[in-house]
């Protein structure tokens, strides 16, 4: 780390430190809205957690620290990427700091733990990053709303449809072996096979796999038209590098989950990531004017393109602000606030489209099929190449009949037998 980045990090830490200590801005009268923001600032996904806080803070800074006409105090807590700690921090925010709402968490297990806690006390809890299907499907909790987030299986479905349109008939999947990966693969496999495609093989590897060669060797010999990969963090970097090293790049098209080509991953990568295609609601390389100005503002403030984490928390903050405005900032009335959040149609988000929630508290998006390309500044980013309007978490299914099928797992991938 050179001196400049060190100073910047130092300043950023100091800034968060100020926010993190609840005693600093405690006694500001009754006029303050208190928001408990939980993010993993230590542990394996600390980089993503930092960008979550930055994204939220960016919106608050733009609005002069106001939400719905009231001053906002953001109390940041580190969940340590650990569900036990997330629970403890949630308790502290609710019972000691007396927050009006909770937002955040990155890993599904931390979100599920906190969701179970707020189920008992009715505290509004917003999850722009947690993608676990069941939180807005079978095991829905009324006061848990996925503002500006998405479910695991939501975006791979349009991607599968797009693959079929390219004439791909036979696919294989490789994924990290945990629920988030199983849900994404499930969404892809179900739509792909129901549209007439077939799945030649599925590979599950543990998180933090350093050597993909056993999997890549098998993938290469399946004779498939396309490979769907679901990787996050360092696994994504390693997978795409080894995919290129193995000579598969250019041989078999690689598509994947949006996490794989998120800015947090491709920022540090070279040509091996170019050309990878994923589906997502957000594409930082989109020509839409609002997206452009958001990306430029983020670049100016943090000297990097926004990642999924920063973007989602920014939009999440905007969503809460819009909802709070419609009830004159009276967020203490939880029922009214939650109803306002559900009704809010987000028009000003960096997506450049109106976003609204479905009846289960999950947003409906226009989904981009996006491709990693080098931009005019020589940096990698995701540029949209096709568009699917109004994609909900239920794709084309009827929600009730859809939820009768079991949740996605290693053993149930929704594959249609032909």
């Amino acid at each position, binding site marked *: 780390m050179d001196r400049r980045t060190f100073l910047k990090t130092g300043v950023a*830490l100091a800034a*968060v*430190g100020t926010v*993190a*200590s*609840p*005693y600093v801005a405690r006694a500001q009268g009754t006029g303050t809205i208190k928001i408990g923001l939980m993010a993993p*600032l*230590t542990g394996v996904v600390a980089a993503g957690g930092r960008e979550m806080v930055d994204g939220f803070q960016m919106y608050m800074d733009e609005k002069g620290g106001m939400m719905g006409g009231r001053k906002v105090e953001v109390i940041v*807590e*580190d969940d340590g990427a*650990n*569900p*036990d700690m997330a*629970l*403890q921090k949630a*308790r*502290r925010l609710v*019972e*000691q700091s007396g927050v009006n709402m909770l937002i955040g968490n990155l*890993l*599904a*297990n931390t979100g*599920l*733990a906190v*969701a*179970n*806690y707020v189920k*008992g006390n009715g505290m509004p809890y917003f999850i722009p990053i947690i993608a*676990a299907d069941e939180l807005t499907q079978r095991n829905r909790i009324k006061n848990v709303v996925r503002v500006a987030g998405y479910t695991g299986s939501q975006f791979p479905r349009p991607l599968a449809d797009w693959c079929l349109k390219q004439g791909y008939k036979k696919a294989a999947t490789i994924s990290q*072996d*945990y*629920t988030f990966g199983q849900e994404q693969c499930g969404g892809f496999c179900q739509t792909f096979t129901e549209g007439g495609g077939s799945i030649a093989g599925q590979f599950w590897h543990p998180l933090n796999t350093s050597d993909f060669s056993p999997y890549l060797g098998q993938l290469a010999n399946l004779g498939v038209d396309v490979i769907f990969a679901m990787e996050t963090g360092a696994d994504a970097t390693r997978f795409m590098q080894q995919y290129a090293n193995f000579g598969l790049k250019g041989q078999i098209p690689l598509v994947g989950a949006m996490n794989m080509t998120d800015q947090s991953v491709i920022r540090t990568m070279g040509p091996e990531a170019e050309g990878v295609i994923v589906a997502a609601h957000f594409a930082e390389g989109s020509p839409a004017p609002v997206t452009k100005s958001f990306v430029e503002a983020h670049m100016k403030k943090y000297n990097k393109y926004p990642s999924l984490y920063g973007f989602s928390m920014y939009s999440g903050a905007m969503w809460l602000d819009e909802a709070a405005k419609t009830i004159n900032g009276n967020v203490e009335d939880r029922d009214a606030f939650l109803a306002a959040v559900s009704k809010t149609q987000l028009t000003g988000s960096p997506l450049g489209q109106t976003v609204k929630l479905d009846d289960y508290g999950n947003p409906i998006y226009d989904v981009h099929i996006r491709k990693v390309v080098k931009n005019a500044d020589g940096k990698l980013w995701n540029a949209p190449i096709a568009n699917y309007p109004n994609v909900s978490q239920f794709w084309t299914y009827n929600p009730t009949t859809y939820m009768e099928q079991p949740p996605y*797992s*290693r*053993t149930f991938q929704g594959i249609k037998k032909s």
Partner: protein
Amino acid sequence: MSEIGIPRLGLAAILFGALAFAIVPLFVPTYQVSILTEVLIYAVLAMSVDILAGYAGRTPLCLGAIFGVSTYVTVYWTSTMAGSPYVGMMLGICAATLVAMVFALLAIRTTGVYFILLTLALGMIIWGICLRWTSVTGGENGLRGNVRPVELAAHLPFYYVVFAAVVVITFAMWRFVRSPFGLTLRGIRDSDSRMRSLGYNVSLHMFIAFTVAGIFAGVAGALYAMFNDFVSPSTVALTQSVEGLLMAITGGAGTLFGSFIGALAIIGLENAVSLYTERWQTVMGVAFILIMIFAPEGILGGIRTLLARKRG
């Protein structure tokens, strides 16, 4: 020395400590009550570690995993099987006992660093199973339970139930380490070859000690299930075992009651420091180093040495 074998000062300190734990929750906000509940539960885990580390001279790194087995079984019973929480807790403790017996059979032959490594590996197996056996354990996502009965939903009544349980458990453990059996364990700690030549069955003693430690860890795990209503692999992870060990050592290995001081110090510090800095883990690390330098016998051990020096 009084008849029951503790100095009068010690007895006064224990009574004062118990009284503090009984009264303080009435005057602090609910969040602190939940922290105190956690302190009590972890103190039981730390005491069970202390039985092995402090009294039998074998440092275990798997009791956190045994604790977690009990939590998993309890949560599984109440959520997936929709059973009664009390039956679930009983089953959890039984499961922990069984696991402890199996681990004991494997581990008692070893001592020193080999015991540490073997118990570490055994604990990691549990963690691996909980992480990968997704259909039962929920994998990375864990299980959301329904353990806490409605009448104990509030923090204060739940605290006093845990408090009562912990008083009974602590008394039982204290009797255990003070018994002739406990004295034999201390003999084994100091020299197992001498104990063997004196005719003691060292393996059997170690087996029983390990199993008993496992039972108590299981009780703590069942209480934890009721406390958190949630379990995930982080509950059986190595950090859990290490945390228990750190509490026992910080409080003072071989003092039993030191575990309460250790649990209070670590959980309290964790909470207080993380309020002010996200670098709280660094602060904790520095605190441990300082304790190891200035009070290698732990806080309670250090106090005892100080008192002894004054008298002498």
